[in-house]
């Protein structure tokens, strides 16, 4: 029993230390789940070059990226929005990559191309069967991201005047969108084009395929920037990490993993 109290006392001690704000010197990167995998990879590479740095990458979403940078919980926020919200104006934003949003269907689907207008009508629920588009008879399962997601906000902004149908299934990450579409022959969804694989099929939009070249040349309309956000003066490690991402090597990593470099 006495030992139990000792353990308790020790833990209490730790709690007090934490409460007094004894923070470790590591750098937390949080935000956009679309950029998270790339940030993890970049952080690993960066830390092999600079062993003294300790970079921790968290997901959470673009809003968490903005919030945690504002509050100081994270030193770097990741946000993938076409336009940043009002409260993010006090932050320094650095564009580090561009990302295409691919519209995906099940590989068995006969549809290969959609116009922006058809896309809008599918996602707002006015077209409800693949038959109406020349596909097989089957009720369309619309799969969308959750409210607040950077990908969803960008998608709705670019498609324009889009009020999502209430029938839409909602998933909270690129990966789950892909899994859901891969499992349902009648599904249509949208995701970061870096996550395309053989389980799903990307359709062309107005005849333009979602490729690196088309995104870079602005021919493919569904694309958005990815920002890294910082507040106030940057710590040396923070600056070095952002510099590394913008370096030739960092941009190369971004490109080889499926995002579009900015430089």
């Amino acid at each position, binding site marked *: 029993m006495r030992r139990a109290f000792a353990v308790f006392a020790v833990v209490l001690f730790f709690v007090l230390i*934490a409460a007094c704000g004894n923070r*470790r010197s590591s750098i937390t990167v949080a935000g956009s789940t679309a950029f998270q995998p790339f940030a993890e990879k970049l952080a690993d590479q960066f830390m092999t070059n600079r062993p003294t740095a300790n970079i921790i990458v*968290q997901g959470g979403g673009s809003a968490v990226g903005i919030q945690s940078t504002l509050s100081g919980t994270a030193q770097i926020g990741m946000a993938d929005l076409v336009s940043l919200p009002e409260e993010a104006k006090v932050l320094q934003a650095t564009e580090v990559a561009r990302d295409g949003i691919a519209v995906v269907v099940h590989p068995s689907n006969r549809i290969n191309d959609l116009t922006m207008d058809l896309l809008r009508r599918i996602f707002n629920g006015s077209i409800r069967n693949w038959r109406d588009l020349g596909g097989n008879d089957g009720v369309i399962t619309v799969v969308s991201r959750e409210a607040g997601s950077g990908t969803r906000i960008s998608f709705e902004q670019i498609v324009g005047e889009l009020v999502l149908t209430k029938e839409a299934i909602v998933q909270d990450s690129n990966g789950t969108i892909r899994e859901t579409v891969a499992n349902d022959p009648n599904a249509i969804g949208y995701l970061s084009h870096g996550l395309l694989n053989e389980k799903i099929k990307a359709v062309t939009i107005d005849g333009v395929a979602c490729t690196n070249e088309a995104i870079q040349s602005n021919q493919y309309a569904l694309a958005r920037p990815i920002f890294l956000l910082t507040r106030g003066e940057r710590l040396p490690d923070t600056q070095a990490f952002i510099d590394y991402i913008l370096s030739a090597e960092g941009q190369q990593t971004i490109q080889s993993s499926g995002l579009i470099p900015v430089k």
Partner: protein
Amino acid sequence: MMRIPAKVNQAAAATVMALATLLTLAVLIFIVVFILEKGLPILSRTFLFSVPRDMGKAGGIFPTILATIILPLLAIALALPLGVGTAIYLTEYTRESRLTRIIRFGNDCLAGIPSIIFGLFGFLFFVTLLEMGWSLLSGGLTLALMILPTIIRTSEEAIKSVPTSYREVSFSLGATRWRTIQRVVLPNALPGILTGVMLGIGRSIGETAALIFTAGSSLRLPQSLFDSSRTMSVHFYILAREGLSTENAYGTAAVLILSVLSVNAVAYYLMHRYMKKNA
């Protein structure tokens, strides 16, 4: 209407209930077998003891195993003194009163709170207000609150079932109340208290919702209690949801199921042995 003979009625009822029992067992066993069948072949020493690469698509699950050991232990270290203390107070220091009823009601309510609410609270309180960030410590503290009711309830049962005669003998030998508790009550209640501990560990291992918001989801090997880390449950959830690697997902699920089942088996064994002793 024709009256159905009582015997026929009974046979029908028994058949229906037997089928229900079989169905229940079949479904539960199917789940375990389904996971183990696909997951066990994945397991290897490298899978268990190497670090994940490429967000868990390749490599092993060592950091998540470590987090799955540290977090429940941390939670127990915090909840055990609180829980046993409460149980001792309720059984040894006070009679049934309005106060104990309020304490018990609070305990029951805490037990019923969904883990997502614990997650929200842990995020607001430990992660943000106390500035612990997403860390093992935030996660452990949140888990401690979650398992506290289980610990209190099982400890109380255990302490209550220590025969009064034991205490009387100790008192008659001149021991004080606290000394009696230390030397007589607690040692005899230990197996029962341990049952609660094991149940708490089992619940912590299986927890996901509360931990995503408090311990975060970093895959790196934690260097201290202030580092974020994900447990096997959280890792499995992310792997399975994101479709990152079906193989690693099944492998993680197999380890997860095996650990939960063995922890629960120990709890059950302790409880059983204990009940026999006191019967």
